[in-house]
């Protein structure tokens, strides 16, 4: 089973990388970019019988730091 785990910064957590990307887009002349937030995509290939609980635990215990990040699990 293939999974995509999207890890994103929680709203309100400052994102220096997103800011830098935003600046670079402005520098390239792209106007109208209101905001940029950078996150991570982690692709997992797991056994078909892996439980939702186990997948959720993988996210909470390692893949995301829930102090600053949210995660979203998408089944391919």
């Amino acid at each position, binding site marked *: 089973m293939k999974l995509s785990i999207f890890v994103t910064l929680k709203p309100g957590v*400052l994102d220096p990388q997103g800011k830098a990307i935003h600046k670079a887009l402005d520098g390239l002349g792209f106007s109208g970019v209101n905001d940029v937030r950078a996150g991570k995509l982690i692709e997992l290939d797991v056994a078909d019988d892996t439980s939702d609980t186990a997948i959720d635990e993988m996210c909470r215990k390692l893949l995301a*730091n829930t102090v600053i990040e949210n995660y979203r699990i998408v089944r391919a």
Partner: protein
Amino acid sequence: MKTAVIVFPGSNCDRDIAVALEQVTGVKPAMIWHGETVLPDGIGLIALPGGFSYGDYLRCGAIAARSPIIAAIVAAADRGLPVLGICNGFQVLTEIGLLPGALMRNEGLDFVCRDVALTVENAQSAFTSRYAAGERVSFSVAHHDGNYVADSDMLDRLEGDGRVAFRYAERVNGSARQIAGVLNPAGNVLGMMPHPERKIEAAHGGTDGRRLFEGLLETVGA
């Protein structure tokens, strides 16, 4: 005082902290590989060194924080044993959850590598008893991810409970409320981005860091 230095793949300040500890305590620290599961008996301090454990993959300190030795460190911290995390060691302590908050990419995205002025905020802890509250000291910093974040309730609590040990006296990395080092509620776990072990002898350009280890030795006992 016997001490232990935890070594992760990618630690690079383990030797510096070992030299500093040996100079101050007179005893060579035990170097403990992260894959171990037990700590030596009779130690008075566990130090988590600076560096780039696991190449900072995933998040700084994230993978090191899931090492086999961590359970023993958490158990020792719960018993009140002093634990000091410097730079990457601080990042590891937040990832373990022994300290609150997280360390993010520096504001401005620059790697900051220079001496910075710090203010000692809490001079009562086992780590800071040889300093005066409000004293200005100079430590080295060398990090890319030292931007301390925590929610405002937690920041208020840290300040209210005297758990901010050191604060930057200048803008360094965008840290919330200029926080450079924080203590756990019991005061026996300290995480800090600046490197006290790089200010031990005059040849380092200053000796402000030495008192942190001398204070520990005094508090914990020989």
